[in-house]
Protein backbone atom coordinates (compact mmCIF):
# COMPACT_ATOMS: atom_id res chain seq x y z
CA UNK A 1 0.00 0.00 0.00
CA UNK A 2 2.84 2.29 0.94
CA UNK A 3 4.42 1.62 -2.46
CA UNK A 4 1.31 2.79 -4.29
CA UNK A 5 1.37 5.99 -2.22
CA UNK A 6 4.96 6.71 -3.17
CA UNK A 7 4.07 5.95 -6.76
CA UNK A 8 1.27 8.52 -6.58
CA UNK A 9 3.44 11.21 -5.04
CA UNK A 10 5.62 11.25 -8.15
CA UNK A 11 2.86 12.40 -10.46
CA UNK A 12 3.70 15.42 -12.63
CA UNK A 13 7.32 15.50 -11.52
CA UNK A 14 8.50 14.12 -14.83
CA UNK A 15 9.87 11.04 -13.05
CA UNK A 16 8.02 8.44 -15.12
CA UNK A 17 8.39 10.13 -18.51
CA UNK A 18 12.08 10.63 -17.74
CA UNK A 19 12.55 6.90 -17.17
CA UNK A 20 10.64 6.07 -20.32
CA UNK A 21 12.75 8.59 -22.25
CA UNK A 22 15.98 7.38 -20.68
CA UNK A 23 15.03 3.76 -21.37
CA UNK A 24 14.23 4.48 -25.00
CA UNK A 25 17.48 6.39 -25.41
CA UNK A 26 19.48 3.55 -23.86
CA UNK A 27 17.62 1.03 -26.02
CA UNK A 28 18.38 3.07 -29.12
CA UNK A 29 22.13 2.82 -28.53
CA UNK A 30 22.66 -0.85 -29.53
CA UNK A 31 20.15 -0.58 -32.38
CA UNK A 32 21.79 2.52 -33.87
CA UNK A 33 25.27 1.19 -33.27
CA UNK A 34 24.56 -2.16 -34.94
CA UNK A 35 22.66 -0.60 -37.82
CA UNK A 36 25.56 1.71 -38.58
CA UNK A 37 28.40 -0.77 -38.13
CA UNK A 38 26.73 -4.01 -39.17
CA UNK A 39 29.76 -5.52 -40.91
CA UNK A 40 32.15 -4.95 -38.01
CA UNK A 41 29.78 -6.61 -35.55
CA UNK A 42 28.60 -9.59 -37.57
CA UNK A 43 32.10 -10.58 -38.65
CA UNK A 44 33.22 -11.25 -35.05
CA UNK A 45 33.30 -14.91 -34.06
CA UNK A 46 32.03 -14.53 -30.50
CA UNK A 47 28.43 -14.99 -29.38
CA UNK A 48 26.35 -12.10 -30.76
CA UNK A 49 25.16 -11.18 -27.33
CA UNK A 50 28.68 -10.80 -25.96
CA UNK A 51 29.60 -8.66 -28.96
CA UNK A 52 26.65 -6.38 -28.40
CA UNK A 53 27.28 -6.02 -24.68
CA UNK A 54 30.96 -5.26 -25.20
CA UNK A 55 30.17 -2.60 -27.76
CA UNK A 56 27.26 -0.89 -26.03
CA UNK A 57 26.88 -1.70 -22.36
CA UNK A 58 29.23 0.99 -21.05
CA UNK A 59 27.07 3.74 -22.51
CA UNK A 60 23.80 2.02 -21.62
CA UNK A 61 24.92 1.44 -18.04
CA UNK A 62 25.99 5.07 -17.85
CA UNK A 63 22.46 6.14 -18.73
CA UNK A 64 21.02 3.68 -16.22
CA UNK A 65 23.17 5.07 -13.41
CA UNK A 66 22.38 8.64 -14.46
CA UNK A 67 18.70 7.90 -14.18
CA UNK A 68 19.16 6.27 -10.78
CA UNK A 69 20.94 9.39 -9.52
CA UNK A 70 18.43 11.84 -10.97
CA UNK A 71 15.46 9.69 -9.94
CA UNK A 72 16.66 9.45 -6.34
CA UNK A 73 17.16 13.22 -6.21
CA UNK A 74 13.60 13.89 -7.37
CA UNK A 75 12.00 11.32 -5.08
CA UNK A 76 13.15 13.18 -1.97
CA UNK A 77 13.10 16.63 -3.54
CA UNK A 78 9.29 16.57 -3.54
CA UNK A 79 9.33 15.74 0.18
CA UNK A 80 11.54 18.70 1.04
CA UNK A 81 10.38 21.29 -1.51
CA UNK A 82 7.12 22.25 0.21
CA UNK A 83 7.86 20.81 3.62
CA UNK A 84 5.68 17.74 3.03
CA UNK A 85 8.14 15.55 4.96
CA UNK A 86 7.15 17.31 8.17
CA UNK A 87 3.51 16.39 7.59
CA UNK A 88 4.54 12.79 6.88
CA UNK A 89 6.51 12.64 10.12
CA UNK A 90 3.48 13.85 12.06
CA UNK A 91 1.41 10.97 10.69
CA UNK A 92 1.42 7.47 12.15
CA UNK A 93 3.61 6.05 9.39
CA UNK A 94 7.16 4.80 9.71
CA UNK A 95 9.97 6.73 8.05
CA UNK A 96 11.58 3.38 7.34
CA UNK A 97 8.67 2.05 5.36
CA UNK A 98 8.54 5.27 3.37
CA UNK A 99 12.24 4.89 2.53
CA UNK A 100 11.94 1.29 1.41
CA UNK A 101 8.81 2.01 -0.62
CA UNK A 102 10.67 4.81 -2.37
CA UNK A 103 13.59 2.47 -3.02
CA UNK A 104 11.17 -0.04 -4.49
CA UNK A 105 9.66 2.55 -6.85
CA UNK A 106 13.10 3.66 -8.05
CA UNK A 107 14.31 0.07 -8.43
CA UNK A 108 11.16 -0.79 -10.39
CA UNK A 109 11.72 2.19 -12.66
CA UNK A 110 15.27 1.10 -13.40
CA UNK A 111 14.11 -2.49 -13.98
CA UNK A 112 11.73 -1.01 -16.53
CA UNK A 113 14.68 0.70 -18.24
CA UNK A 114 16.67 -2.53 -18.27
CA UNK A 115 13.66 -4.37 -19.70
CA UNK A 116 13.51 -1.90 -22.60
CA UNK A 117 17.22 -2.41 -23.14
CA UNK A 118 16.79 -6.19 -23.06
CA UNK A 119 14.13 -5.94 -25.73
CA UNK A 120 16.42 -3.79 -27.86
CA UNK A 121 19.29 -6.27 -27.55
CA UNK A 122 16.99 -9.15 -28.46
CA UNK A 123 15.79 -7.15 -31.46
CA UNK A 124 19.39 -6.56 -32.62
CA UNK A 125 20.25 -10.24 -32.41
CA UNK A 126 17.12 -11.28 -34.31
CA UNK A 127 17.66 -8.70 -37.02
CA UNK A 128 21.34 -8.88 -37.72
CA UNK A 129 22.73 -12.08 -36.22
CA UNK A 130 21.79 -15.73 -36.23
CA UNK A 131 20.72 -16.32 -32.63
CA UNK A 132 22.47 -19.23 -30.91
CA UNK A 133 20.42 -21.92 -29.15
CA UNK A 134 20.90 -20.77 -25.60
CA UNK A 135 20.31 -17.15 -26.55
CA UNK A 136 17.25 -16.56 -24.38
CA UNK A 137 19.03 -17.98 -21.34
CA UNK A 138 22.06 -15.80 -22.03
CA UNK A 139 19.93 -12.71 -22.46
CA UNK A 140 17.91 -13.14 -19.30
CA UNK A 141 20.75 -14.23 -17.04
CA UNK A 142 22.78 -11.30 -18.23
CA UNK A 143 20.05 -8.71 -17.78
CA UNK A 144 19.05 -10.21 -14.43
CA UNK A 145 22.66 -9.83 -13.40
CA UNK A 146 22.62 -6.19 -14.47
CA UNK A 147 19.42 -5.60 -12.48
CA UNK A 148 20.81 -7.15 -9.32
CA UNK A 149 23.97 -5.09 -9.57
CA UNK A 150 22.05 -1.81 -9.86
CA UNK A 151 20.19 -2.25 -6.57
CA UNK A 152 23.10 -1.17 -4.30
CA UNK A 153 23.37 2.09 -6.24
CA UNK A 154 19.61 2.60 -5.87
CA UNK A 155 19.70 2.18 -2.10
CA UNK A 156 22.85 4.23 -1.65
CA UNK A 157 21.57 7.13 -3.77
CA UNK A 158 18.23 7.05 -2.01
CA UNK A 159 20.00 7.23 1.34
CA UNK A 160 22.04 10.19 0.18
CA UNK A 161 19.06 12.09 -1.11
CA UNK A 162 17.02 11.34 2.01
CA UNK A 163 19.72 13.16 3.96
CA UNK A 164 20.02 16.22 1.73
CA UNK A 165 17.41 18.95 1.96
CA UNK A 166 18.88 20.59 -1.12
CA UNK A 167 18.53 18.55 -4.26
CA UNK A 168 21.71 19.78 -5.87
CA UNK A 169 23.87 18.37 -3.08
CA UNK A 170 22.60 14.84 -3.60
CA UNK A 171 22.96 15.37 -7.34
CA UNK A 172 26.53 16.56 -6.85
CA UNK A 173 27.44 13.56 -4.71
CA UNK A 174 25.83 11.18 -7.22
CA UNK A 175 27.63 12.73 -10.16
CA UNK A 176 30.94 12.55 -8.32
CA UNK A 177 30.17 8.88 -7.67
CA UNK A 178 29.64 8.30 -11.38
CA UNK A 179 32.77 10.26 -12.16
CA UNK A 180 34.75 8.02 -9.82
CA UNK A 181 33.70 5.00 -11.89
CA UNK A 182 35.11 6.72 -14.97
CA UNK A 183 38.44 7.34 -13.25
CA UNK A 184 38.77 4.04 -11.39
CA UNK A 185 41.16 1.89 -13.44
CA UNK A 186 39.40 -1.29 -14.63
CA UNK A 187 40.52 -4.77 -13.68
CA UNK A 188 40.48 -4.80 -9.90
CA UNK A 189 37.66 -6.83 -8.37
CA UNK A 190 37.58 -4.80 -5.16
CA UNK A 191 37.34 -1.48 -7.01
CA UNK A 192 34.60 -2.79 -9.27
CA UNK A 193 32.57 -3.43 -6.11
CA UNK A 194 32.12 0.34 -5.78
CA UNK A 195 28.30 0.75 -5.88
CA UNK A 196 28.34 3.12 -8.84
CA UNK A 197 30.74 0.85 -10.75
CA UNK A 198 28.76 -2.37 -10.21
CA UNK A 199 26.09 -1.62 -12.84
CA UNK A 200 28.82 -1.34 -15.49
CA UNK A 201 29.91 -4.97 -15.03
CA UNK A 202 28.65 -7.53 -17.52
CA UNK A 203 27.86 -11.16 -16.88
CA UNK A 204 29.95 -12.36 -19.80
CA UNK A 205 32.81 -10.03 -18.91
CA UNK A 206 32.93 -11.20 -15.32
CA UNK A 207 33.00 -14.97 -15.89
CA UNK A 208 31.33 -17.55 -13.65
CA UNK A 209 33.44 -17.21 -10.52
CA UNK A 210 33.74 -13.46 -10.50
CA UNK A 211 30.06 -13.02 -11.25
CA UNK A 212 29.24 -14.88 -8.05
CA UNK A 213 31.60 -12.69 -6.08
CA UNK A 214 30.10 -9.55 -7.58
CA UNK A 215 26.59 -10.71 -6.70
CA UNK A 216 27.69 -11.49 -3.18
CA UNK A 217 29.34 -8.09 -2.94
CA UNK A 218 26.16 -6.41 -4.15
CA UNK A 219 24.16 -8.31 -1.54
CA UNK A 220 26.50 -7.25 1.25
CA UNK A 221 26.36 -3.63 0.08
CA UNK A 222 22.56 -3.69 0.04
CA UNK A 223 22.49 -4.97 3.60
CA UNK A 224 25.05 -2.41 4.75
CA UNK A 225 23.29 0.54 3.10
CA UNK A 226 19.90 -0.51 4.46
CA UNK A 227 21.33 -0.85 7.96
CA UNK A 228 23.05 2.52 7.64
CA UNK A 229 19.79 4.17 6.59
CA UNK A 230 17.95 2.63 9.54
CA UNK A 231 20.58 3.97 11.91
CA UNK A 232 20.48 7.36 10.19
CA UNK A 233 16.68 7.61 10.48
CA UNK A 234 16.86 6.73 14.15
CA UNK A 235 19.54 9.32 14.83
CA UNK A 236 17.65 11.96 12.89
CA UNK A 237 14.53 11.37 14.96
CA UNK A 238 16.50 11.73 18.13
CA UNK A 239 18.47 14.88 17.42
CA UNK A 240 15.65 16.92 15.91
Amino acid at each position, binding site marked *: *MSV*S*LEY*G*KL*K*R*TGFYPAFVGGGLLAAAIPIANTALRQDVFTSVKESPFVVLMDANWQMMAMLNVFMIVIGACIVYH*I*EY*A*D*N*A*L*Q*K*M*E*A*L*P*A*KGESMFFSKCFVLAAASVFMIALETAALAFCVRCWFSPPEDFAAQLFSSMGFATALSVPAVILMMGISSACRNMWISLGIGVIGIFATVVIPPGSLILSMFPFTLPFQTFSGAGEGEAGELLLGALVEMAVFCAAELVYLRIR*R*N*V*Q
Partner: protein
Amino acid sequence: MNMIETNKLTKTYGDFKAVAGINLHVRKGSVYGFLGPNGAGKSTTMKMFLGLTKQSKGTFTIDGKSYPQDRQAILREIGSFIEAPAFYGNLSGEENLHIIRKILSLPKSSVDDALELVGLTEHRKRLARKYSLGMKQRLGLAGALIGKPPILILDEPTNGLDPVGIHEIRTLIRNLPKQFDCTVLVSSHLLPEVELMADDVGIINHGRLLFEGSLADLKQDAVQKGYSHEHLEDTFLAMIDEDNQQRGRRR
Protein backbone atom coordinates in the same frame (compact mmCIF):
# COMPACT_ATOMS: atom_id res chain seq x y z
CA MET B 1 -9.69 14.07 32.85
CA ASN B 2 -6.73 15.58 31.04
CA MET B 3 -6.15 14.66 27.42
CA ILE B 4 -2.71 16.26 27.27
CA GLU B 5 -0.54 16.66 30.31
CA THR B 6 3.07 17.74 30.55
CA ASN B 7 5.45 17.46 33.45
CA LYS B 8 8.33 19.98 33.51
CA LEU B 9 8.61 19.72 29.75
CA THR B 10 11.86 21.36 28.60
CA LYS B 11 13.59 21.89 25.28
CA THR B 12 17.01 23.47 25.02
CA TYR B 13 19.04 24.30 21.96
CA GLY B 14 22.61 24.68 23.17
CA ASP B 15 22.32 27.16 26.04
CA PHE B 16 19.04 28.61 24.75
CA LYS B 17 15.92 27.42 26.56
CA ALA B 18 13.09 27.36 24.04
CA VAL B 19 10.70 25.70 26.50
CA ALA B 20 11.53 25.84 30.21
CA GLY B 21 9.82 23.21 32.36
CA ILE B 22 6.18 23.88 31.58
CA ASN B 23 3.23 21.98 33.06
CA LEU B 24 0.23 22.04 30.78
CA HIS B 25 -3.17 20.50 31.46
CA VAL B 26 -5.55 20.20 28.53
CA ARG B 27 -8.97 18.94 29.60
CA LYS B 28 -10.77 16.37 27.49
CA GLY B 29 -13.40 17.91 25.22
CA SER B 30 -12.16 21.45 25.69
CA VAL B 31 -10.59 24.01 23.40
CA TYR B 32 -7.29 25.07 24.92
CA GLY B 33 -5.85 28.36 23.72
CA PHE B 34 -2.08 28.41 23.82
CA LEU B 35 -1.10 32.04 23.83
CA GLY B 36 2.22 33.82 23.53
CA PRO B 37 4.21 36.26 21.42
CA ASN B 38 6.21 35.05 18.42
CA GLY B 39 9.13 32.88 19.44
CA ALA B 40 7.73 32.15 22.92
CA GLY B 41 7.97 28.38 22.47
CA LYS B 42 4.46 27.52 21.30
CA SER B 43 5.49 25.74 18.12
CA THR B 44 8.34 23.93 19.83
CA THR B 45 5.97 22.57 22.47
CA MET B 46 3.52 21.40 19.82
CA LYS B 47 6.30 19.83 17.80
CA MET B 48 7.33 17.82 20.85
CA PHE B 49 3.79 16.49 21.17
CA LEU B 50 4.05 15.24 17.59
CA GLY B 51 7.49 13.75 17.99
CA LEU B 52 8.89 16.17 15.43
CA THR B 53 11.43 17.25 17.98
CA LYS B 54 12.60 15.49 21.11
CA GLN B 55 12.28 17.02 24.58
CA SER B 56 15.50 17.67 26.48
CA LYS B 57 13.92 17.05 29.88
CA GLY B 58 10.52 16.30 31.39
CA THR B 59 7.70 14.10 30.14
CA PHE B 60 4.26 14.39 28.63
CA THR B 61 1.31 12.09 28.16
CA ILE B 62 -1.34 12.28 25.48
CA ASP B 63 -4.52 10.35 26.21
CA GLY B 64 -2.52 8.42 28.80
CA LYS B 65 0.17 7.41 26.30
CA SER B 66 3.73 8.64 26.30
CA TYR B 67 6.38 9.34 23.70
CA PRO B 68 8.48 7.69 22.30
CA GLN B 69 7.11 4.26 23.31
CA ASP B 70 3.63 4.92 21.90
CA ARG B 71 4.63 7.21 19.02
CA GLN B 72 2.46 5.47 16.43
CA ALA B 73 -0.54 5.23 18.72
CA ILE B 74 -0.29 8.90 19.67
CA LEU B 75 0.04 10.08 16.09
CA ARG B 76 -2.95 7.98 15.09
CA GLU B 77 -5.13 10.03 17.46
CA ILE B 78 -3.82 13.47 16.56
CA GLY B 79 -4.70 15.65 13.64
CA SER B 80 -2.02 18.28 13.34
CA PHE B 81 -1.23 21.52 11.62
CA ILE B 82 2.19 22.94 12.32
CA GLU B 83 3.75 26.21 11.19
CA ALA B 84 3.94 26.88 7.46
CA PRO B 85 1.70 24.62 5.41
CA ALA B 86 3.37 21.35 4.41
CA PHE B 87 2.23 19.69 1.19
CA TYR B 88 3.32 18.18 -2.12
CA GLY B 89 3.34 21.04 -4.62
CA ASN B 90 3.12 18.73 -7.63
CA LEU B 91 -0.12 17.16 -6.43
CA SER B 92 -3.61 18.62 -6.30
CA GLY B 93 -5.30 19.42 -3.00
CA GLU B 94 -7.40 16.28 -3.29
CA GLU B 95 -4.36 14.08 -4.03
CA ASN B 96 -2.52 15.52 -1.04
CA LEU B 97 -5.38 14.55 1.23
CA HIS B 98 -5.62 11.17 -0.45
CA ILE B 99 -2.07 10.40 0.70
CA ILE B 100 -2.87 11.33 4.30
CA ARG B 101 -6.10 9.34 4.14
CA LYS B 102 -4.24 6.22 2.98
CA ILE B 103 -1.69 6.46 5.76
CA LEU B 104 -4.44 6.84 8.35
CA SER B 105 -6.47 4.09 6.60
CA LEU B 106 -9.64 6.16 6.50
CA PRO B 107 -12.63 5.63 4.19
CA LYS B 108 -12.65 7.34 0.79
CA SER B 109 -15.42 9.74 1.76
CA SER B 110 -13.23 11.37 4.42
CA VAL B 111 -11.34 13.33 1.76
CA ASP B 112 -14.53 14.94 0.50
CA ASP B 113 -15.68 15.62 4.06
CA ALA B 114 -12.42 17.35 4.93
CA LEU B 115 -12.48 19.43 1.73
CA GLU B 116 -16.06 20.43 2.44
CA LEU B 117 -15.25 21.32 6.03
CA VAL B 118 -12.57 23.86 5.07
CA GLY B 119 -14.35 25.06 1.94
CA LEU B 120 -11.90 23.79 -0.65
CA THR B 121 -14.27 21.56 -2.59
CA GLU B 122 -14.33 23.70 -5.71
CA HIS B 123 -10.51 23.98 -5.82
CA ARG B 124 -9.79 20.34 -5.09
CA LYS B 125 -8.42 19.57 -8.56
CA ARG B 126 -5.99 22.47 -8.60
CA LEU B 127 -2.27 21.88 -7.90
CA ALA B 128 -1.34 22.75 -4.32
CA ARG B 129 1.63 24.75 -5.66
CA LYS B 130 -0.83 27.11 -7.35
CA TYR B 131 -2.98 27.66 -4.26
CA SER B 132 -3.13 31.08 -2.65
CA LEU B 133 -1.71 31.46 0.85
CA GLY B 134 -5.17 31.15 2.38
CA MET B 135 -5.95 28.04 0.35
CA LYS B 136 -2.67 26.42 1.38
CA GLN B 137 -3.62 27.17 4.97
CA ARG B 138 -7.03 25.57 4.44
CA LEU B 139 -5.41 22.54 2.84
CA GLY B 140 -3.20 22.20 5.91
CA LEU B 141 -6.28 22.40 8.13
CA ALA B 142 -8.08 19.79 6.04
CA GLY B 143 -5.06 17.52 6.55
CA ALA B 144 -5.48 17.96 10.29
CA LEU B 145 -9.26 17.52 10.38
CA ILE B 146 -9.44 14.54 8.04
CA GLY B 147 -10.92 11.51 9.77
CA LYS B 148 -12.13 13.57 12.75
CA PRO B 149 -9.29 12.71 15.11
CA PRO B 150 -9.99 12.83 18.87
CA ILE B 151 -7.17 15.34 19.41
CA LEU B 152 -6.35 18.36 17.26
CA ILE B 153 -3.12 20.31 17.51
CA LEU B 154 -3.31 23.51 15.49
CA ASP B 155 -0.48 26.00 15.31
CA GLU B 156 -1.76 29.48 14.44
CA PRO B 157 -4.41 28.11 12.09
CA THR B 158 -5.80 31.50 11.06
CA ASN B 159 -2.47 32.91 9.82
CA GLY B 160 -2.79 34.29 6.32
CA LEU B 161 -6.56 34.01 6.10
CA ASP B 162 -8.86 36.91 5.24
CA PRO B 163 -11.36 38.20 7.86
CA VAL B 164 -14.13 36.02 6.47
CA GLY B 165 -11.85 32.99 6.49
CA ILE B 166 -10.67 33.76 10.02
CA HIS B 167 -14.26 33.93 11.20
CA GLU B 168 -15.15 30.65 9.49
CA ILE B 169 -12.18 28.79 10.93
CA ARG B 170 -12.76 30.19 14.42
CA THR B 171 -16.39 29.12 14.37
CA LEU B 172 -15.33 25.72 13.09
CA ILE B 173 -12.79 25.25 15.88
CA ARG B 174 -15.24 26.52 18.50
CA ASN B 175 -17.76 23.88 17.44
CA LEU B 176 -15.37 20.98 16.96
CA PRO B 177 -15.61 19.52 20.49
CA LYS B 178 -19.39 19.46 20.27
CA GLN B 179 -19.52 18.14 16.70
CA PHE B 180 -16.80 15.51 16.76
CA ASP B 181 -16.24 15.04 20.46
CA CYS B 182 -12.61 16.06 20.27
CA THR B 183 -10.04 18.03 22.24
CA VAL B 184 -8.36 21.00 20.61
CA LEU B 185 -5.03 22.62 21.41
CA VAL B 186 -4.78 25.79 19.39
CA SER B 187 -1.99 28.35 19.50
CA SER B 188 -2.19 32.02 18.70
CA HIS B 189 -0.42 35.27 19.42
CA LEU B 190 -3.72 37.15 19.49
CA LEU B 191 -5.65 37.09 22.74
CA PRO B 192 -8.96 38.33 21.29
CA GLU B 193 -8.84 35.33 18.98
CA VAL B 194 -8.27 32.89 21.84
CA GLU B 195 -11.03 34.60 23.78
CA LEU B 196 -13.48 33.78 21.00
CA MET B 197 -12.50 30.13 20.68
CA ALA B 198 -11.10 28.76 23.89
CA ASP B 199 -12.40 27.44 27.19
CA ASP B 200 -8.98 27.42 28.84
CA VAL B 201 -5.90 29.52 28.26
CA GLY B 202 -2.19 28.95 28.76
CA ILE B 203 0.08 31.97 28.40
CA ILE B 204 3.71 31.38 27.55
CA ASN B 205 6.58 33.84 27.25
CA HIS B 206 10.26 33.05 26.67
CA GLY B 207 9.54 29.37 27.22
CA ARG B 208 7.89 29.81 30.64
CA LEU B 209 4.23 29.32 31.42
CA LEU B 210 2.95 32.54 33.01
CA PHE B 211 -0.67 31.54 33.46
CA GLU B 212 -2.94 28.56 33.05
CA GLY B 213 -6.67 28.42 33.71
CA SER B 214 -10.09 29.27 32.37
CA LEU B 215 -10.91 32.65 30.85
CA ALA B 216 -12.84 33.55 33.98
CA ASP B 217 -9.79 32.75 36.09
CA LEU B 218 -7.72 34.96 33.85
CA LYS B 219 -10.06 37.90 34.45
CA GLN B 220 -9.99 37.33 38.18
CA ASP B 221 -6.24 37.04 38.16
CA ALA B 222 -6.04 40.33 36.28
CA VAL B 223 -8.16 42.11 38.86
CA GLN B 224 -6.04 40.80 41.71
CA LYS B 225 -2.82 41.92 40.11
CA GLY B 226 -4.30 45.28 39.22
CA TYR B 227 -4.24 44.82 35.47
CA SER B 228 -6.98 46.11 33.26
CA HIS B 229 -9.71 43.49 32.99
CA GLU B 230 -11.94 45.40 30.61
CA HIS B 231 -9.96 44.25 27.64
CA LEU B 232 -8.14 40.98 28.05
CA GLU B 233 -5.68 42.06 25.37
CA ASP B 234 -4.34 44.65 27.81
CA THR B 235 -4.09 42.01 30.51
CA PHE B 236 -2.07 39.82 28.20
CA LEU B 237 0.22 42.67 27.18
CA ALA B 238 0.74 43.74 30.79
CA MET B 239 1.54 40.18 31.82
CA ILE B 240 4.11 39.76 29.06
CA ASP B 241 5.56 43.19 29.74
CA GLU B 242 6.02 42.48 33.42
CA ASP B 243 7.64 39.14 32.68
CA ASN B 244 10.03 40.77 30.24
CA GLN B 245 10.97 43.38 32.85
CA GLN B 246 11.59 40.71 35.46
CA ARG B 247 13.76 38.83 33.02
CA GLY B 248 15.72 42.03 32.48
CA ARG B 249 16.24 42.33 36.22
CA ARG B 250 17.20 38.67 36.60
CA ARG B 251 19.92 39.21 34.04
